[in-house]
C-alpha cells in the first residue's frame, strides 16, 4: 500500500517533468490563450472550443500527452474567459459563468470591476488547485473499485447520468429526456457488439463504427450557434463596456472572500463528481448556498464580492471534479468531459476498463500536472491581458462567425477527408438550430450519443450474463443506491419546484445551455 502511494507520488513528479518540457509549456500557454479567447466569445463555450480544436490538433502530429495538455488548457481557459465578459459586459461568455453576472456586473458598475476580476481569477486558481488535489485523492482509489462496477452497475451509473442531465439541463424534464433519448437513438447506428449486426448505416461502410461524436458535437454546438448568432446580428446588439482600471484586490477583501472560495470549491468539486452535472450547475448551487450562508445584510445581487468568489470557484472546481468519474469509470460528468472521453478513446485509452492510473500513468499524470501548470499560467495571463481579451468582442459578428464556421468545416473534413462527415455535420447544425429555437437542451443529446452505446451494451450484457434476470439491476447495495439516486434526481427538482414556485428551476434553466 505504501509502495503504491510512493509510486503515485513518483508518477505525479514524472508528470510534472513531462508537462514542463518547453514544447508542452508552450502548448499550455497557447491552449490557455485560445481557451480564454473562446471563453470570452459569447456562446462559443468549452464544448465547442474543445470539439473544434480536436481535429485540428490531430493534424499537428503532436504526442498524445501534448494533445491532451493543449486541449485541457483550452478547457480551463474557457472557464476563465467566460467570467471576464460576465463581469465587464454582463454577457456570460459561457453557461457556467451566467451566475457571475449577478454580482460581478453590479461590482463593475460601481467601479469595482478590478476587484471582481481579481477575485474571480484568484478563486478559480485556488479552486482549480483544490480540485486537482481532490482528483488525486479520489481518483486512484475509485479506479481500484472499477472491478466492482460490472455491467449492471455501469448501466445504473449511465441511467443516473441521463437522469441528472435531463432533469437539470433545460426548462423542462420532458425536453431533457427527449434530448437524451434522441442521443441514445443516434448511438444505435453502427455495428452492434452483441450480435455483430450492422444497424442504420444505409450501406455506408463509414457508419459501421457509429456516428462520430466530434462531428455531431461541432454540428450541434458550433454550427447551430453560428446560425443563431448570425440571426441575432440582424437585430443588432450593442455591448456596453465597463472599464477595469487596475485589477487587484486588497488583502482584506481577499480574506473576506476566502470562506466563499473554499465553500464554493468543495461544493463545486462534489457536484462535478456526480455524473451528468457540470460547471454551470455547480455555479448556481454554490451561489445559492453562499447567499443562504453569508448574506446577512442583503448585499448579494448588489455587488457582493462573495457572490463572485463562490460561483467562480465552484465552476472551476467542478471542471476538475468531473474528471473523477471520467478517469475512473469512463462516465463523463459533462458535455466537455464527454468530448474529452472521446479524445482519450481515440488515443487508445479506455477509462473504466482497468485502472487508467496504472495502465496509462504517463498520460494521466502528465495531464494532471498540466492542470496545476495551466491554472498558474491562467492566473498570470489574466491579470495583464484582460483588457486585450475583451477587445475581441469588438470584432464584428459578420466576420467572426463565418470564420468560426470555416474553421469548423475544415477541421471536420481534415479528420477523414470525407464529404459524408461534412453532410452529417451540416444536418446536425440545422437540427441544433431548431432545437435551440424549441428550447430543447443540446448537451443531453451529446451525452446520450456518447453513453448510449454503454447503456445498451451494459444492459444486454447484464441480462446475458444473468440469464435474462431483470432483478440483476437491483442486485447489491451499490445498484440499489444508484436506483434511489436516479429517482431522487428525476423527481426532487420537480417537487421542490412546485413548493418554491418555480424559482430554482428557472435558475438552472438559465444556466443550462451547456452543462
Amino acid at each position, binding site marked *: 500500500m505504501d509502495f503504491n502511494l510512493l509510486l503515485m507520488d513518483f508518477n505525479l513528479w514524472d508528470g510534472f517533468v513531462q508537462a514542463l518540457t518547453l514544447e508542452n509549456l508552450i502548448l499550455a500557454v497557447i491552449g490557455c490563450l485560445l481557451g480564454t479567447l473562446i471563453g470570452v466569445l459569447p456562446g462559443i463555450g468549452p464544448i465547442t472550443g474543445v470539439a473544434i480544436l480536436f481535429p485540428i490538433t490531430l493534424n499537428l502530429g503532436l504526442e498524445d500527452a501534448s494533445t491532451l495538455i493543449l486541449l485541457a488548457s483550452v478547457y480551463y481557459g474557457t472557464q476563465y474567459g467566460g467570467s471576464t465578459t460576465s463581469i465587464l459586459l454582463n454577457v456570460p461568455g459561457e453557461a457556467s459563468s451566467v451566475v457571475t453576472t449577478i454580482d460581478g456586473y453590479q461590482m463593475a458598475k460601481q467601479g469595482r470591476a478590478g476587484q471582481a476580476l481579481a477575485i474571480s481569477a484568484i478563486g478559480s486558481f485556488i479552486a482549480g488547485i483544490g480540485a486537482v488535489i481532490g482528483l488525486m485523492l479520489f481518483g486512484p482509489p475509485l479506479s481500484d473499485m472499477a472491478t466492482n462496477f460490472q455491467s449492471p452497475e455501469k448501466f445504473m451509473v449511465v441511467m443516473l447520468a441521463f437522469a441528472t442531465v435531463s432533469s437539470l439541463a433545460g426548462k423542462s424534464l420532458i425536453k431533457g429526456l427527449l434530448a437524451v433519448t434522441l442521443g441514445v437513438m443516434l448511438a444505435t447506428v453502427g455495428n452492434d*457488439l452483441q450480435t*455483430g449486426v450492422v444497424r442504420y448505416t444505409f450501406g455506408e461502410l463509414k457508419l459501421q463504427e457509429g456516428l462520430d461524436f466530434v462531428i455531431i458535437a461541432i454540428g450541434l454546438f458550433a454550427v447551430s450557434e453560428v446560425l443563431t448568432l448570425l440571426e441575432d446580428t440582424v437585430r443588432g446588439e450593442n455591448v456596453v463596456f465597463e472599464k477595469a482600471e487596475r485589477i487587484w484586490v486588497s488583502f482584506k477583501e481577499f480574506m473576506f472572500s476566502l470562506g466563499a472560495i473554499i465553500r464554493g470549491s468543495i461544493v463545486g468539486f462534489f457536484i462535478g463528481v456526480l455524473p451528468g452535472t457540470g460547471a454551470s450547475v455547480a455555479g448556481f448551487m454554490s451561489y445559492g448556498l453562499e447567499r443562504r450562508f453569508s448574506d446577512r445584510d442583503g448585499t448579494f445581487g448588489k455587488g457582493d464580492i462573495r457572490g463572485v468568489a463562490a460561483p467562480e470557484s465552484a465552476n472551476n472546481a467542478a471542471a476538475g471534479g468531473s474528471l473523477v468519474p471520467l478517469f475512473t469509470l469512463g462516465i463523463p460528468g459533462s458535455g466537455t468531459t464527454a468530448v474529452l472521453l472521446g479524445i482519450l478513446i481515440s488515443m487508445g485509452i*479506455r477509462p473504466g476498463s*482497468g485502472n487508467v492510473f496504472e495502465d496509462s500513468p504517463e498520460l494521466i499524470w502528465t495531464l494532471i500536472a498540466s492542470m496545476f501548470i495551466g491554472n498558474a499560467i491562467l492566473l498570470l495571463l489574466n491579470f495583464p491581458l484582460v483588457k486585450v481579451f475583451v477587445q475581441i468582442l469588438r470584432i464584428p459578428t459578420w466576420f467572426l462567425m463565418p470564420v468560426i464556421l470555416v474553421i469548423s468545416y475544415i477541421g471536420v473534413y481534415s479528420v477523414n477527408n470525407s464529404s459524408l462527415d461534412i453532410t452529417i455535420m451540416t444536418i446536425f447544425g440545422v437540427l441544433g438550430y431548431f432545437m435551440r429555437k424549441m428550447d430543447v437542451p443540446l448537451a443531453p443529446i451529446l451525452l446520450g450519443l456518447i453513453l448510449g452505446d454503454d447503456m445498451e*451494451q451494459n444492459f444486454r450484457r447484464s441480462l446475458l450474463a444473468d440469464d435474462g434476470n431483470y432483478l440483476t439491476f437491483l442486485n447489491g447495495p451499490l445498484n440499489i443506491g444508484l436506483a434511489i439516486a436516479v429517482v431522487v434526481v428525476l423527481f426532487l427538482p420537480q417537487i421542490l419546484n412546485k413548493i418554491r414556485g418555480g424559482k430554482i428551476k428557472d435558475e438552472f434553466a438559465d444556466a443550462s445551455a451547456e452543462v
Partner: protein
Amino acid sequence: MRALRRVFILVLTLALVAAACGDDDADGGADTTAAATTEAPAGPYVPTSPECVAPSDPGGGWDFTCRTIGGLFESMGLTGNVIVTNQPGGGGGVAFADIAANRFDEDDLVIAASPATAIRFAQNRYTGLEADQFRWIGAIGADFGVVAVTQDSPFQTFDELVAAVRADPGATVFGGGSPPGGQDHFKVLLLAVELGVDPEAIPWVAYDGGGEAQNALLGGEIEVFTGDVSETFGNEDLRILAVMAEDRIEGMDAPTTIELGYTTIFPIWRGLLAPGGMSDEAYDFWVDALGQVEASDEWAEARAGNGLSPLRLLGDDFQAFALDAVASFRTLSEPFGLVAP
C-alpha cells in the same frame, strides 16, 4: 467597410469552393495520395513512395504492424520513408473498398493484416471482395489465443473446464473483446467444434476490447475469457488454463492445447498483404524485404516487447496459408449465419 465585407465574402467563398473540390476523393478517405509513378523505371524495382495502410484508427494491432515494420523497412535501408496511413471504418471495409476501386495497381502500397482480416473476408464483410483478389506478402510474428479464468475459479485445469462444458454447454459463461463471429469468439467456436459441443449453446458476452472483458472476468460477470497471450501475460490475477498454440510461451506457466491432447490452435499472426494488381517484381521485393525484417534483431526485440512469438511465413506459402484460413473461417461461420450474402 462595405468593400472589406465584399473581400471577406469572396475569400470565404473561395475557401468553401476549395473544400467542396476535396469531395472528389471523398470516397477515398485516405489522407495521403501516393504520387503516381507510371513510368517504368529501369533496373530492379525500388518503391518510390512506400506506404503502409492500417485499416483502423491508431493504436490497434494493424497500426502496430504498419508502424513497426514500416519503421524497420526504413531504418534497415530497404526503402525510403514509409508513410503510415490510418484508414478506419467498417472493420477495414473502407480501406479495402478504396484500395480495390482506386489503388489496385499500385506497387508501393502494402496493407496490414491479421486473422481478423481473414475472418472478415470469410464472412463477406469486405463487400464484393475476395481474399484471392489480393496478394498476401507474409506474416512475421504471432500472438496466441488463451483460455483464462480467475485465480479463485472452480476450474483448476483445462480438462475440468472441458468436462463442465461437455456436461452442460449453457452453464459456463464465456466472454471476450469481440462480437459473435469475431476473433475472440472464434476461439470458442473452434474448441466447441473439436469437443463436439453445439457452439451456439455456449453463452457469449461481447465486450469492447480485451481490457473490458478482463475486467468483467475479474468482477465475476463472465467465467471464462478467451483473450490473447499479449493481453494476459504476467497478470497474476488470472489463471491461464491453456494457450492455443503448439509450443509453450516462454515465461508463461500454462500448458498448450496441443500438449493437452487437443488439435485446435489459434495464432494471431501479424502480416502484410498487397493489392492484387501489384507487379511480380514489386511483390518479390516486399516478400524479400519482410523476410529481412523478420531475421533482424530489431524485429526480435519489438516482437518480444509486444508479446509476439516468432513466425516466418512468406510469399506463396503465406498466400496458401491465408486462403486456407479464409476458407476454414467461412466453413465455420456459415452455420451461424455470419456470412453476409
